[in-house]
């Protein structure tokens, strides 16, 4: 993060220079006005008046030019910083391991990448603006001192309070604004759930209950807004009043001095103009102090993410996948693993499992026996706590991550598709895949038929802003995605659970073809899916308790029958009568 800011320093420096040029032009105007009054208007010198007028006009042109440049550079630098930080933030998240993402919430990361970066942007934009404002304040003070020190003290004496008040105003207002946002969000969630749950609300006639909840939320928003309004009412009039005190004192004290002849009328007018000139810079200086505190807090939150080391990375000299024929030998060698290292009961406790190249194995077991964990250790989403996982004889920790993951195709239990076309979702593993590859993969996954029926076929946009698919359709696209990657090892983690049972039959046939001569790990509880595998492994308590073919286990193992029975009863009950016809 420091480096991002560091590398913007040239831009900041230029912004400051431009700001200083603006200051010079802006500060010279009141001096020129005073000069015009003293040396041209009062003596009645018309030709001098023309010269002074031209000088003021020139200063005006400079001030105009530089105020534009000043803003342009300040924003350019700050937006650049924000953009670079956001890009780095995103890139860094992509490198952080599963274990990290398991702990953090998407919403929290989103708010760091959005709100916190905005706070930082707001602060960075203020740097050059603030420096030139600060110089303006100093320059004006010095100029006024040379004219009349006492009058300067009177004129500017009240202005530091503008700065103090502006800072306090900003600090007080900020939490109120946050409260308004929170209360509005709560109100929005009542609206949102009432609209989404309209069937429940109408079904029970509970409109009145919801209406009173909304009223309560609307009152909260009102109260929070009024609290913020009261903060504004307390500070804004005071901020308006303070500069007037300076103006009044100048008129009073300065006026008497002019009458005495110890001060010129031009200087008096110049004083007035200078005070007006200082109001905004001082207000902004107050805001920047408050904004700076928030920006530091934000920067710490962003930095916390950027400073997290990715624990799962390539070792120095990481190996490519070994070129063996046939490929796809998998071995779990005395593997111990727990999601919270050391704290919890391990999920896998001395697991030994060997899968020959081309073999297909079904992992069966009750929930929490470690089936999915096995699927997640092979692609090295997590590192084992003890023992080793080997692919084609090489410890996965010694392989290049990129190569390793290219070699393994995984269909997760929960399907995640991207807001993109269906074709691009399937071609996720290989951007260069042509239509033929994509269609072939979709056919094998039993997805081709329904995709063709969509309004724009493979070009149909899906996701948030696009077409929404059923759970089964989504799973079939995820399977096609894995097939297209043409991996050495294919892992299907409950990959057909949401597929309509009648369609599952078709997919099973196709999957048989995909699995031929390919190492496959199937995690399933439907007997039909289990039957796809050459060998069945029954897990309990993080270890293998039995293995064999489906038929032998069924005939000989009580525990196996129990697990299947639970799943089967479950399936029997959920088969859709209606949607079959």
């Amino acid at each position, binding site marked *: 993060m420091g480096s991002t800011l560091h590398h913007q320093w040239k831009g900041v420096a230029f912004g400051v220079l431009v700001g200083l040029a603006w200051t010079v032009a802006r500060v010279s105007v009141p001096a020129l*006005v005073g000069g015009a009054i003293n040396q041209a208007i009062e003596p009645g010198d018309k030709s001098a008046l023309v010269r002074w007028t031209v000088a003021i006009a020139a200063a005006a042109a400079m001030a105009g030019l530089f105020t*534009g440049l000043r803003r342009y550079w300040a924003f350019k630098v700050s937006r650049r910083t924000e953009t670079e930080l956001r890009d780095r933030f995103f890139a860094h998240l992509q490198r952080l391991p599963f274990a990290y993402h398991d702990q953090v919430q998407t919403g929290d990361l989103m708010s760091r990448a959005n709100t916190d970066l905005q706070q930082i942007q707001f602060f960075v934009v203020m740097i050059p603006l603030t420096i030139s404002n600060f110089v303006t304040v100093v320059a004006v003070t010095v100029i006024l001192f040379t004219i009349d020190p006492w009058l300067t003290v009177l004129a500017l004496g009240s202005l530091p309070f503008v700065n103090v008040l502006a800072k306090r105003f900003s600090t007080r207002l900020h939490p109120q604004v946050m409260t308004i946002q929170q209360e509005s969000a709560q109100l929005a969630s009542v609206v949102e759930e009432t609209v989404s749950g309209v*069937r*429940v609300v109408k079904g029970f006639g509970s409109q009145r209950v919801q209406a009173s909840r909304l009223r309560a939320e609307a009152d909260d*928003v009102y109260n929070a807004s009024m609290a913020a309004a009261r903060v504004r009412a307390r500070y804004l009039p005071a901020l308006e009043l303070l500069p007037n005190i300076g103006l*009044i004192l100048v008129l009073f004290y300065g006026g008497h001095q002019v009458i005495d002849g110890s001060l010129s009328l031009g200087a008096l007018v110049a004083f007035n103009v200078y005070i007006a000139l200082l109001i905004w810079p001082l207000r902004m200086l107050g805001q920047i102090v408050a904004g700076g505190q928030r920006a530091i807090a934000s920067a710490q939150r962003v930095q916390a993410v950027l400073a997290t080391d990715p624990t799962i990375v390539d070792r120095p000299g990481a190996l490519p996948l070994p070129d063996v024929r046939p490929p796809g030998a998998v071995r779990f060698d005395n593997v111990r693993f727990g999601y919270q290292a050391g704290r919890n009961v391990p999920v896998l406790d001395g697991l030994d499992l060997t899968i020959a190249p081309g073999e297909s194995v079904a992992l069966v077991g009750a929930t929490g026996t470690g089936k999915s964990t096995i699927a997640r250790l092979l692609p090295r989403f997590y590192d084992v706590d003890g023992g080793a996982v080997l692919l084609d004889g090489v410890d996965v920790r010694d392989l290049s991550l990129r190569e390793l993951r290219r070699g393994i195709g995984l269909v997760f239990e929960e399907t995640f598709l991207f807001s993109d076309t269906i074709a691009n979702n399937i071609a996720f593993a290989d951007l260069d895949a042509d239509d033929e590859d994509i269609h072939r993969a979709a056919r094998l996954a039993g997805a081709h038929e329904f995709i063709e029926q969509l309004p724009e076929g493979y070009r149909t946009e899906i996701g948030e802003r696009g077409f929404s698919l059923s759970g089964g359709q989504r799973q079939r696209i995820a399977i096609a995605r894995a097939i297209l990657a043409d991996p050495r090892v294919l892992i299907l983690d409950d990959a057909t659970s949401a597929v309509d049972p009648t369609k599952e039959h078709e997919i099973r046939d196709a999957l048989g073809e995909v699995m031929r001569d390919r190492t496959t790990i199937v995690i399933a509880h439907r007997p039909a899916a289990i039957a796809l595998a050459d060998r069945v492994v029954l897990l309990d308590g993080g270890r293998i308790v039995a293995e064999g073919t489906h038929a032998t286990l069924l005939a000989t193992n009580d525990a196996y029958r129990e697990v299947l029975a639970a799943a089967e009863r479950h399936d029997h009950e959920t088969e859709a009568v209606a949607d079959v016809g």
Partner: protein
Amino acid sequence: MWAEAGVAQEDALDREQARWVMRRAASMLRPYRRQVVLAAVLMTLSTAALLAGPFYVRYGIDHGISAGDTGALNVAVFAYVITAGLNYFVYRAVLVVVSKVGEGFLRDLRVRVFDHLQRLSMPFYDREKAGVLVSRMTSDVDSLAELVQMGLVMLAVNMLLLVLSLIVLAIVSWQLMLVCLIVLPFVVAASIRFQRESNRAYLTIRDRIGHTLSRLQEGISGVRVIQAYGRQDVEVERFVAQSGDLYDAHMRSVRAQAWYLPVVEFAGLGTTALVIGVGGSLVISDVITIGTVAFFVLTLGNLFEPIQQLSQLFNTVQSAGAGLKKLFELLDTPVDVAERPGALDLPEEGPIEVDHVSFSYTGTVAVLQDVTLTIEAGERLALVGPTGAGKSTLAKIVARLYDPTEGSVRFAGVDLRNATQRSLRQRIVVVPQEGFLFNGTIRDNVRIARGDATDDEIDDALRAVGIFERFDSLPDGLGTEVRERGSRLSAGEKQLVSLARAALVDPALLVLDEATSSLDPGTELLVEAAMDRLMEGRTVVVIAHRLSTAERADRVGVVADGRLVELGSHAELLADERHYAALFATWVGGLGHPVRP
């Protein structure tokens, strides 16, 4: 601070719409009449006070300093002190009064829109996307809130300031005022152009922020898939491209500011030069006084500042207007299913008669055609049929979530359209397919069904569906917050809460939409047992997705293509060997290779 609001071309109001929106808003503000008048008076006073400052300086210079009269100078100073002091309180009052009116207006609007939303019928919700409706209450009201919180006072004060400044300047010296007017048209033209550019830029920025954030969100939620396929580099590249687009949009907006600001700055300072030049020579010719020149130099800010501020507020005002128009349009949407005058309370129980009912959502494609059937009190009827055949619609019409397009539905002889809403919801309860939970505690979620239920009654309802012990054993018991739509509870537990709601109401007729998606085997049994208990002694219409449910019903109705094509017991229909029998056969065939231990 710049370009923070905007309105799309198609949403911008034309003159007539703007007038309509103003009239509606004005009528909604009627209860605040007095405060509005008070605010107007206070704002005028405050603006006048702002202008008075330079005026006193002028008086002090001309009558005090130039004339060497300390008395006149002291008068000017004294008046200035009084005015500034008073303005402190006036300005303070302005901010409070305007906020009271504005925030009160917003609160009324939120409540009214929400109440109206709740009165709208189901067909309305089928037509409109939930997201759009929610955005009425969020972004449209928020754009108004922005105007109320930041803009309203600024708008009024700046307009007053502009007008009053022109008047005062003209009174003090019409010659110098004409000099000031030379640049004004340029500033106004530049402001209009800037307003348009920044509006366009704002819309692009808003759009691209949305895209960037959704890509960010997807990159975070989908990080496991991305890593599984080793696609990090590609995703980062795509994100960088997206955020680069956002940067460009920001820079476009900054460039607009970068030309506009110099124009305003130069206009202001350039006019100072003109005032000094022209005013100075007028002083030399004895037409005006030095005090007048000083007055003009000090007041110039009051002329240019408001134009700049107004040009920025313009976007806020426009988007608030557009938001208000959408809200008023929503309030004007007619309520379809309303209670008739002289509506009757439904009797305790009785048969349901569906009499030649037809229904269509849009008026063109009929979803149901001429359905007639009678369900006796205490009977259990299962509806089966393909997706989209109309079985859900039929169930919803029986519960009067929709009114039939033709024909009628009667409960114990009373047409549902003549029933009071209250008795309707006491006699007939619909349990939807998925247990939908609201934010709040488990107890709150059950109470949704009957706002006046006591805690004991809620406990009993939960006991009736056999889930009381499980929830009661949680650390916070029934007071457990369900969090974000019940993310803390399993699908089965949510379903049980939903059933407990029905138990709380204790209706005569229960309309059940059976879940299609699977639950974990443990809770599945609980849910089934709960449903059985709930159906005991009631008339039940169940949309069946499971064979066992259809088997257990007294009668089965098969709905196909919007018609009731078969009606009879499970055994009778199987014997008939028509739709139901075919459905049953496919189902048995689809089982694959059933394994029985």
